[in-house]
């Protein structure tokens, strides 16, 4: 008689424990598939396609948040189900998977590795300290400002990766007892993280989700937005946010240490050990400046993604970075996932699902606030801002983008609102890579994210609403 050993049973039970969210997702997916589409979808051109797309989105969101399977598996599921559910033909799915936005995400992740590996962080640290001096509030303000301005060009996690050691050195040089410097650590690390997060809206190259939105505008026939046009809309908001964020951080975290002269002195000694800038470092900066100018002047014609890849090629060709470093530090699974997310985003639009969700949301809210552009933009901002605290900002825009562009109003304005709001990932440890990076230091508590991030979130929503109503109509 066939008997199953206790070891096998124990292994099966363990597998069920580890994969319970996967099993639940599959069961929910099957149940939803067997149910009829909601009646409101019958008016759409492809009601079955829209409903099946909705099922894929629900399944994918649950799997991305709970992570029972690796992200590439979720990406594959999205692609597979589009074909299996008859939403799109295989070649259509394949062609929507790879786009300039995906090239940009790939290129920017690799550029981040290339830049961080140059060791320019010590030069940056020296420059900042020379500007800010040794008063704690000035250092915090300097970190917030410089991180915001830099990340608008090179991305938030690149800047946080470079600046975090600087912040940690200042903290550790003040006292080796973590309890004595807990508040100082929170102030400096949140200045770095939140400054970097805010700044990523400033230019298209600040974040992959900016390029995803630009791709949607083009794909759905809403026109194109150039690098400089993006800056015109986003930079005023950033410049308003920076001083307000500094005030919020300084009032939330009030360390006892008002002056960090010992820590600053030790930092200066440490960074000057590196000696003068070498030719390699000048070359690395020159390559990046070339990439930046390419984005500004050629982005429109050859695509931001291709230019990012040119930059990576140059770093590799000049031997400024090894392929092994790029390979190790580039999360290829994330690139696959973003490709799949953009692919399903296109189907969200093409099947009419975006229109159904957008229409339903606006109909529901009309009872509260009537049919107003302000309501439309507020919903777009809040949807994006809340979702980004649970998903990555790029995934949030990939899913929300098509919905927001169908909510009514000017799609360019609505798209900007959603894309900029996706930067408001301040509330939780898992909200963004910058939050995870500073949390990995072991010096910031989970509660601090809500304490400072909550205020920053409210401020950012208000500023974005004001900018969208008072400034953007002038352009």
């Amino acid at each position: 008689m066939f008997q199953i050993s206790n070891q096998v049973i124990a292994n099966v039970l363990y597998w069920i424990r580890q994969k319970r969210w996967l099993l639940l997702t599959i069961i929910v997916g099957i149940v939803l598939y067997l149910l009829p589409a909601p009646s409101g979808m019958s008016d759409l051109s492809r009601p079955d396609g829209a409903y099946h797309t909705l099922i894929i989105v629900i399944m994918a969101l649950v799997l991305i948040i709970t992570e029972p399977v690796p992200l590439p598996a979720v990406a594959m599921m999205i692609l597979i189900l589009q074909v299996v559910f008859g939403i799109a033909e295989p070649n259509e799915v394949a062609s929507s998977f790879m786009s300039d936005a995906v090239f940009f995400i790939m290129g920017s992740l690799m550029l981040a590795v290339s830049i961080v590996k140059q060791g320019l962080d010590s030069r940056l640290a020296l420059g900042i300290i020379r500007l800010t001096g040794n008063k704690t509030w000035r250092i915090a303000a300097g970190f917030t400002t410089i991180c915001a301005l830099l990340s608008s060009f090179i991305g938030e996690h690149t800047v946080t990766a470079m600046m975090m050691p600087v912040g940690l050195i200042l903290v550790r040089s003040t006292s080796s007892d973590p309890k004595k410097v807990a508040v100082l650590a929170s102030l400096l690390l949140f200045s770095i993280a939140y400054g970097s997060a805010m700044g990523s809206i400033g230019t298209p190259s600040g974040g992959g989700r900016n390029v995803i939105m630009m791709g949607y505008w083009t794909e759905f026939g809403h026109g194109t937005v150039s690098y400089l046009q993006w800056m015109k809309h986003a930079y005023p908001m950033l410049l308003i946010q920076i001083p307000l964020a500094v005030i919020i951080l300084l009032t939330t975290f009030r360390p006892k240490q008002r002056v960090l002269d010992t820590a600053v002195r030790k930092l200066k000694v440490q960074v000057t050990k590196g000696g003068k800038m070498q030719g390699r470092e000048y070359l690395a900066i020159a390559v990046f400046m070339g990439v930046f100018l390419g984005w500004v002047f050629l982005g429109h014609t050859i695509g931001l993604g291709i230019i990012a890849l040119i930059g990576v090629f140059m770093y590799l060709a000049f031997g400024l970075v090894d392929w092994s470093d790029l390979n190790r530090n580039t999360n290829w699974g994330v690139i696959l996932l973003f490709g799949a997310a953009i692919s399903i985003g296109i189907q969200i639009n093409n099947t009419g699902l975006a229109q159904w969700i957008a229409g339903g949301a606006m109909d529901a809210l009309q009872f509260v606030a009537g049919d107003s552009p302000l309501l439309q933009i507020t919903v777009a901002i809040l949807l994006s801002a809340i979702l980004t605290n649970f998903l990555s900002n790029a995934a949030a825009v990939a899913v929300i983008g098509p919905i927001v562009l169908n909510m009514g109003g000017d799609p360019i304005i609505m798209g900007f609102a959603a894309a900029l709001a996706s930067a408001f990932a301040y509330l939780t440890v898992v909200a963004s890579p910058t939050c995870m990076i500073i949390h990995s230091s072991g010096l910031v508590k989970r509660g601090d994210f809500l304490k400072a991030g909550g205020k920053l979130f409210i401020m950012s929503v208000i500023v974005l609403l004001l900018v969208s109503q008072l400034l953007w109509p002038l352009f």
Partner: protein
Amino acid sequence: MKFLLAVGSKEYSEPTLNIGSRIAKAFDADLSVVYVGSKPKEMFAGRVNLALDSMVKWEIYHPGIDVLRWAFDYLNSSGYLESEQVNGFNPENIVQENDRIRMVLQGSYGRKVDLILREGEIIDELRREAQKEDYTLTIIGGSQKRSMAHDLIQYIPTSIFVVKSFDTRRDYRLLLLVDDSKATKRAVRFGATIAANQGMEVDTLTVSKSENFGPGYSRAAKAAGRFLKSKGIPHKQHFLTGDPVDTFVEFASETHLMVMGASSKSPLKKFFLGSKPIKTLEKAAFPILIVK
């Protein structure tokens, strides 16, 4: 023999490291001290690792390395490590392996000591570590989470020692739970070795639901008594009636360290109905060692 000892933080793990290293010494066992840190979400893992790599250039290491450094200093100062570790804890000696980083040290009297850093969910990582090397015992501090008891006993393939409310300044007595299960014999041997090495007196406790103690129980209790006597371990035997788990917990005092055998129930029954060790561990406010 090889023991796996999980530490969580410098603040709370001293009792675990104290009693864990003493028990490893009693068995002349190799010891692996593991710190399981939280893992970044896969979406951001590459970028977090980039930041951590960038910190290494500034000689700022993963916070888990700090905990391992503290564990190293503790073991060194308690004489557990070879006296020639003159260079102290050196992060340069850490080796990156597939799913963990590890530092190999020389323990005193030829024992081997590893310091290991893993990232992920604690049960998952301890299970992986336990399956990677042939560990006999996993030692871990107490947890507020009720489900931890079930997960530890059900999914970690080694004996489990949960160090709850252990006071390093207190003199403990060993409380050995004796019944007619197969695991009791192993528990008695294990407990006797600890008691003999640590100079602990022993209480044995046999609990029956009814007044009638079956022949299996009597045989087991006599065998345990004979074994303890042969080892010269002072002991008292107790026979009580009542619900076993409630009686175990009521009898144990704050100076007891409990040792019991694992349940022989199938994993499915344990999953749905629990077991005496699982329920005892959930209710216990004292250190408890479950021998598989």
